[in-house]
């Protein structure tokens, strides 16, 4: 056999793997979309028996509060320190409030809260649903004529989707408070200028509402990925652990990619302000 056939075989193998990867990912995306559609259609139980969803809000939202609040505080404090360092060179240290508020409300609030939410709550949702599948609890529900998507998956989805905007708002508010602590209390920027310049520069619709929209979109994306990865996980210990990792990686990438798209749509499309 001449040596080039071996190389050709090798190349063909690579192309086959690439092709099958692409096809299986597209297939999974299609399945995930169908799953989302099915879940939204069958979320009647989650909304009628709202207690199920409330328990999940507790799990995804309330238990994430500590990490969200502490991170928000520190992010705001660091922003104030770093921002002051640069702004005072231009004699514009009074604009510190604008810098902190705009970067938190527009970008860091939704994005960092989303990333934290993905690693704190998303991974737990995947692991929980994956383990329920691996221990055949989902099959047992089906045997009892209970739809596991309606009973287990949909409440988790809605719990996450409802929690995320609140968490992002808390993150931003906490960050602005942190910025205030460092900027006004520690460094000594004038408190009046800090708040009034912030109020003059931050627009309710352009900045705050767009930030909220971002956090809603991220919430849907992260929880969708988390419940889907859990539901789709191979029912083994290894499968569940891989699904959990994939949830964190995929949802972080999804947040950053979606953030770019949303920012491009929101902040550059409109004419003048």
């Amino acid at each position, binding site marked *: 056999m001449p040596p080039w056939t071996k190389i050709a075989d090798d190349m063909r193998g690579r192309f086959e793997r690439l092709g099958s990867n692409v096809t299986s990912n597209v297939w999974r995306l299609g399945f995930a979309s169908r799953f989302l559609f099915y879940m939204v259609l069958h979320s009647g139980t989650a909304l009628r028996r709202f*207690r199920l969803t*409330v*328990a999940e*809000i*507790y799990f995804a*939202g*309330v238990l994430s*509060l500590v990490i969200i609040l502490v991170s928000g505080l520190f992010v705001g404090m660091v922003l104030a320190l770093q921002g002051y360092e640069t702004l005072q060179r*231009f004699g*514009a240290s009074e604009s510190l409030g604008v810098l902190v*508020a705009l970067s938190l*409300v527009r970008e860091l609030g939704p994005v960092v809260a989303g990333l934290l939410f993905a690693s704190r709550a998303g991974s737990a949702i995947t692991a929980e649903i994956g383990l329920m599948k691996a221990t055949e609890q989902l099959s047992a529900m089906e045997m009892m004529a209970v739809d596991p998507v309606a009973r287990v998956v949909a409440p988790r989805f809605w719990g996450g989707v409802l*929690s995320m*905007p*609140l*968490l992002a*708002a*808390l993150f*931003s*508010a*906490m960050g*602005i408070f942190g910025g205030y602590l460092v900027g006004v209390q520690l460094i000594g920027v004038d408190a009046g200028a800090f*708040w009034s310049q*912030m*109020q*003059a520069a*931050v*627009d*309710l619709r352009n*900045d*705050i509402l767009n*930030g*909220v929209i971002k956090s809603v979109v991220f919430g849907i994306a992260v929880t969708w990925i988390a419940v889907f990865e859990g539901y789709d996980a191979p029912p083994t210990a290894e499968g569940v652990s891989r699904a959990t990792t994939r949830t964190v990686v995929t949802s972080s990438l999804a947040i950053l990619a979606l953030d770019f798209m949303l920012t491009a749509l929101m902040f550059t499309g409109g*004419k*003048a*302000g």
Partner: protein
Amino acid sequence: MNRSTIDLWVGVFVVAGAAALLFLALKVGNLASFSNSQTYQVYARFANIGGLKARAPIKSAGVVVGRVSDIRFDNDAYEAVVTMNLDASYAFPRDTTAKILTSGILGEQYVGLEAGGDGVMLKSGDRLRLTQSAVVLENLISQFLFNKASEGKEPAK
């Protein structure tokens, strides 16, 4: 943990989240000003508006009395037409002057109103006839250099 404790904590969480949103809207975004108050619309023509943007403040004696609602270019007169929403609680005489000013050296541009002496007040749809365009830094510098150059020539004569 029993059910009612979970409900309590979720309630606390939702209230805290709503409070954070309210804080962002009121304290950070300043929802209160001008969003629901009555306004009347006047317009003015400027030869050059510099960097004025829609939603820029309109100030009189340093107090914000309205916002720029729209900026258009009039292709017949080659002028900028600036539409302004003024708060209805402030009335200005008909011969009020509108100037485009800058807050600080690097600050944003705003419209400054200087009240005139006319007894008749502006009403909705009126035009401010006395305007002063934005100062363009390049023009100012070239004027300054031009003056300097002509000054320097004179002693040599």
